[in-house]
């Protein structure tokens, strides 16, 4: 099996991820932050260490400002619902995932907020000046941007947009689902107010892990409240990080794996991982463009994208192509709308969507070649007409 669905989740994971989870499962087992026996201390240390590793990766000074969630969708929901109030206005882009758009539209439908959208071009790229145009005219509380699209792989210039947002008194929330671990994400020099990430994609951890960094000074309300192991004498939720946002038992086994994944990324180096993934991406794009009937989407420049590539094969529905790739060529990939309808509207691929190859740090050139051969065969075959 050739796995090209890394934008959905990474596979395989480094063996260290499994080993860390197995070690927790067999030798630690206890909850963190509730008790003082040695097993519980080990669990608390493990959670602390994962937080510290993430802080190092994202250049965050105080790791207590990182809260753990079950995925980036939960992180975005906390940021959006916890920060926005009735009457607030938001700017976002036409390249957002439903993990951003659904919580925003929900608040909009209830008459709580107003949304302004920056339209990306056909390659999925946004012009930062388009944010400035809106921010000059409207009082915007929050700018929400997808750091890299899960459809086109296009990257937004986060630092430039953050600077524009701050110049106009707004805050910025970045969705780093497709960049954390695959592209440099620097919360400090990027001047990011809130950074949502998932653990199971390029951070190489297991599903069920994610997080949200919240800069000091941002007033945020939690989505849920409950036991935290702190301030237990009070029936009022703690008002300090990270406890305020981590009610209930944490996914400690998942965080053990996430810590090992982040450690692997730090040791290998994000820039090395990116270089390797982009080499495969460039090779794929260059050769796929030569195949008759294959239409590629997203930016042509490698510095404007991550290793996520959408394409279509003429006379072949994306779902059919993905089925054929799996059945006849043993290639796993995703087809359809990738939970981002507005991004497909932007690149002109509604309603059928696209086929998506997303390369990871464990893919190699031989696999990409097999992928290209498969596309060439499918584009020639009569069965594409179904």
């Amino acid at each position, binding site marked *: 099996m050739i796995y090209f669905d890394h934008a959905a989740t990474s596979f395989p994971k480094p063996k260290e991820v499994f080993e860390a989870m197995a070690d927790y499962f067999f030798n630690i087992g206890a909850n*963190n*932050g*509730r*008790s*003082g*026996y040695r097993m*519980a*201390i080990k669990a*608390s*240390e493990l*959670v*602390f260490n994962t*937080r510290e590793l993430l802080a190092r990766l994202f250049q965050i000074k*105080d*790791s*207590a400002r990182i809260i753990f969630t079950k995925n980036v969708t939960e992180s975005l929901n906390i940021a959006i619902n916890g920060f926005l109030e009735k009457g607030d206005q938001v700017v976002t882009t036409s390249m957002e995932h439903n993990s951003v758009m659904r919580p925003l539209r929900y608040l909009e439908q209830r008459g709580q907020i107003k949304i302004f959208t920056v339209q990306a071009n056909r390659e999925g790229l946004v012009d930062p000046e388009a944010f400035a145009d809106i921010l000059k005219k409207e009082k915007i509380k929050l700018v929400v941007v997808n750091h890299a699209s899960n459809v086109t792989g296009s990257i937004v210039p986060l630092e430039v947009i953050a600077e524009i947002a701050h110049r106009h008194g707004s805050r910025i929330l970045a969705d780093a689902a497709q960049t954390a671990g695959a592209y440099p994400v620097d919360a400090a020099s990027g001047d990011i107010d809130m950074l949502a990430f998932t653990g199971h994609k390029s951070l190489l951890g297991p599903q069920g892990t994610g997080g949200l960094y919240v800069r000091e000074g941002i007033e945020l309300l939690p989505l849920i409240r409950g036991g*935290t*192991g*702190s*301030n*237990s*004498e009070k029936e009022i939720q*703690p008002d*300090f*990080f*990270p*406890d305020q946002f981590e009610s209930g038992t944490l996914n400690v086994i998942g965080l053990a794996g996430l810590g090992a994944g982040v450690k692997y990324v730090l040791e290998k180096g994000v820039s090395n991982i990116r270089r390797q993934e982009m080499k495969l991406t460039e090779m794929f794009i260059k050769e796929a463009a030569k195949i008759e009937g294959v239409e590629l989407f997203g930016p042509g420049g490698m510095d404007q994208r991550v290793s996520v590539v959408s394409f279509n094969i003429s006379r072949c529905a994306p779902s059919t192509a993905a089925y054929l790739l799996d059945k006849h060529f043993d290639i796993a990939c995703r087809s359809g709308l990738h939970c981002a309808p507005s991004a497909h509207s932007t690149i002109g691929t509604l309603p059928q969507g696209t086929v998506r190859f997303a390369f990871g740090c464990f893919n190699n050139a031989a696999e990409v070649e097999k992928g290209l051969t498969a596309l060439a065969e499918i584009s020639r075959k009569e069965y594409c007409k179904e």
Partner: protein
Amino acid sequence: MPQAVVIVFKSTHDVIKAKNELAKACIAHELIPTPKEISAECGMSLRLEEPLLSKALDLFQTAGVRYRDDLL
């Protein structure tokens, strides 16, 4: 035998951070369940010998460890 003091922290995150800071500075300490006479917290606290307290608190200040000075 010097008297022991117990330091209570805001969050478990700070307990572990404090423990790491003390270990780095070779200051003897022990993690214990928070004694109920001090606080109804259900988490952990840190015990060390009284003469080491001021050095420990200096370290915590520098590292940004949040401890409960109201319970000292």
